[in-house]
């Protein structure tokens, strides 16, 4: 044991003295993973769930640092100027950073960040009270007759954005959007019949859906959710719709060297395939879907025009 330690120390000392920062020797010290929300939320839980497995594949400690505030804006602004040596990474729910860019003045641009890897994807679902419309067609008919009230987990949230896209593509003229802070409020209001429908992540409403108090009518995705196989997607009902992908993943600061990105991407991608991580993901009903660095970058580029189209509607007139 002591011998191993000595060898480790010698090797570490040797690398420190001998080489400048060079991809092949990465990483030689603990890596900081910034979470753009407080300890205990969804982003934080997923980061803490994957971190031990990333440690295993990188051979270095992964230290979580929570930087909540202004929906993550504070963290993004600081992250823009972090040295791109791969020792500081950020994890958040994409595309919230892009929405923040469109909501006010920002110094950062999400498209400048270096995408590493995303492990999970989530989609919005349209839910109604269990005692109201039985099918999506019935709902659509009612929605076209008079404006319904629809709950959102926040103005300018991804639920809002997806709601606006759906309205546009389904030909519904008007909805009275009612923004809440977080999904719990909008779901409670729907369960108490104060709202006509709510846009939310399926995972946020799962308890009341299972109990039959709420009914999911449509999942905004191109394929069904394995945890909720009964919820139809637009394709099943004959609609051709575009979606805003919601990804949980990790990014490096702007201009991170490609060899470091490769090492990190490999470590995160292997970590996401570990049984221990998959078990936690199943309990949290996360939809695991590996998105590599290049594909992640494409998703970032694709989302800008979609959000730009609805920019004016993200804030009220």
């Amino acid at each position: 044991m002591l011998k191993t330690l000595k060898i480790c120390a010698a090797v570490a000392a040797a690398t420190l003295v001998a080489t400048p920062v060079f991809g092949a020797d990465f990483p030689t010290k603990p890596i900081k993973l910034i979470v753009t929300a407080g300890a205990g939320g969804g982003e934080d839980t997923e980061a803490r769930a994957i971190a031990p497995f990333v440690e295993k594949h990188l051979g270095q400690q992964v230290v979580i640092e929570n930087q909540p505030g202004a929906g993550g804006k504070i963290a993004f602004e600081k992250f823009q100027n972090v040295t791109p040596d791969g020792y500081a990474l950020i994890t958040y729910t994409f595309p919230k950073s892009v929405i923040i860019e469109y909501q006010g003045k920002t110094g950062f641009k999400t498209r400048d960040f270096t995408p590493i890897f995303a492990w999970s994807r989530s989609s919005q679902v349209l839910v109604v009270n269990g005692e109201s419309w039985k099918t999506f067609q019935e709902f659509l008919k009612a929605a076209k007759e008079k404006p319904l009230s629809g709950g959102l987990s926040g103005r300018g949230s991804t639920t809002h954005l997806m709601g606006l896209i759906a309205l546009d593509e389904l030909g519904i003229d008007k909805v009275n959007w009612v923004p809440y802070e977080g999904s719990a409020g909008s779901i409670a209001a729907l369960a108490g019949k104060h709202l006509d429908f709510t846009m939310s992540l399926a995972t946020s409403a799962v308890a009341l859906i299972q109990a039959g108090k709420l009914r999911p009518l449509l999942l905004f995705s191109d394929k069904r959710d394995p945890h909720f196989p009964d919820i139809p997607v637009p394709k099943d009902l004959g609609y051709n719709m575009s979606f805003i992908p919601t990804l949980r993943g990790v990014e490096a600061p702007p201009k991170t060297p490609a060899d470091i990105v490769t090492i990190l991407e490999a470590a995160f991608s292997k970590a996401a395939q570990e049984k221990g991580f998959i078990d936690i993901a199943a309990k949290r009903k996360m939809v695991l879907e590996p998105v590599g660095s290049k594909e992640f970058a494409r998703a970032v580029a694709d989302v800008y025009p979609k959000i730009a189209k609805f920019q004016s509607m993200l804030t009220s007139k």
Partner: protein
Amino acid sequence: MDVLLQAIAFVLQWQNLAALAGGTVYGIIIGVLPGLGPSAGMALAIPLVMTWHPATALIFMGALYKCSNYGGSLTAILVNTPGDASNAATILDGYPMCQRGMGGVALGLSATSALVGGTIGMICLIYAAPFLADFALEFGPAEYFLTAVLALSLIAAVVQGATIKGLIAAGMGLLLSTVGFDVIAGHLRYTFDWAPVEDGIPLIQALVGLFAVTQALVLAESAASISRLAELSGSFWEGVRTYFRHPLIMVRASLIGLFVGILPGVGQSSAGLLAWADAKRVSKHPETFGEGEPVGVIASETATNSCMPGDLVCTIALGLPGSVGAAVFLGVMIIFGIVPGPLVFMNQPEVIYSLFVALFLTSFLIFIIGMTVARRLAVVTLLPNNVIVPLILVVSLLGSFAIRNEMADVFISLAFGALGYVMLKGGFTPIPLLLGLVLGEMVETNYHRALLISGGSYSIFYASVICKILILLTILSLVGPYLGPFWKTLTQGEK
């Protein structure tokens, strides 16, 4: 109730009792440390309990979550620093009691409040959770708006005696509550492009400023110690006895705490403040509140402790968390394979009822810890100011920083410290400001939500039965203080 007996037997196994005790102690420590709330405490403890039996792990987490509040009340009473936002009202009378050398009594009150408030809250949770959850769902935006208005009407009671200054402070609080992202319209208001306030004025940081920093400035003026007397008078047991001399306050505060806890849309931090204001309103000597009135501590601590089980009602019965702490607890439950919701009482009753039994027992454990260990902490109030003042400042500002790892928050605390000092010297109390700050957003956002739903029609505000009751209560709360004397003159005639 077979399942309840099974749960009791399960909790009494040694490893579960150990988890219960461990969670309680860890929770109290988390509560004492500024900047570390129950959410961070639970998140940090997840790796520790990951390999445990799910029910044992939940007992640990539940105890941690429930007891952190008691730790916060210790610092609130002894060094004028709220451990969490929910302890704000405890400071108002708890700390002045320390200044009068009655720190031991205040600690006795707080431990007894944890016992009684926690027990009443838990009994309601165990026997009526599904019913209470259905009641909570009846509250839509209009009902929330009227609840907030009813709560604001308590300001009238708080400011009695110094009405103008009180209303100025309340107005300032309401104004400050508008800072940040406007949830309804999606605009940033009064942030001057400064990101740290985009979520609104951070509450704990503001409280640290208003109380800890302000008080440090006041203490720095004199060379004595917090307790103005050289020795402590009154004991822990005197606190316990005082508590049971006020059964009416006990019931009122428990119900207020429970009510605030059950409604997911009402900020948990307001429970203590509202119970405190309510106790002041019904008191025969309201002028003593804020000067070290034991009843003030009883009201605020009892409400805070019954609020937490209330908070768990919707979290467990509907899967809808009403606070950040509850959201984290929900996440913990899911990781251990328990899906809270209407079906949990049927699918996994043994886990849920063991959790309930354990939480019930934590109240007694807190009381024992208060009786044996915590009461000795009162001696810190005898430390000379040149030792305690730098200590309070450093620890509280560190806590302010630690919440978001954000230096700007330290400056926010210092700014509120300066504001608090100026207010104090000008004869303003910070309570109306706090009530305004805590309730402002609830009033505003729910007013807008209600009108968005009704399409602009104001009839939504008096459509439901609950709305009508709330309006009636608000009117009573406002004119109540004048009715008594009016009735007297009416019946006795003029003399």
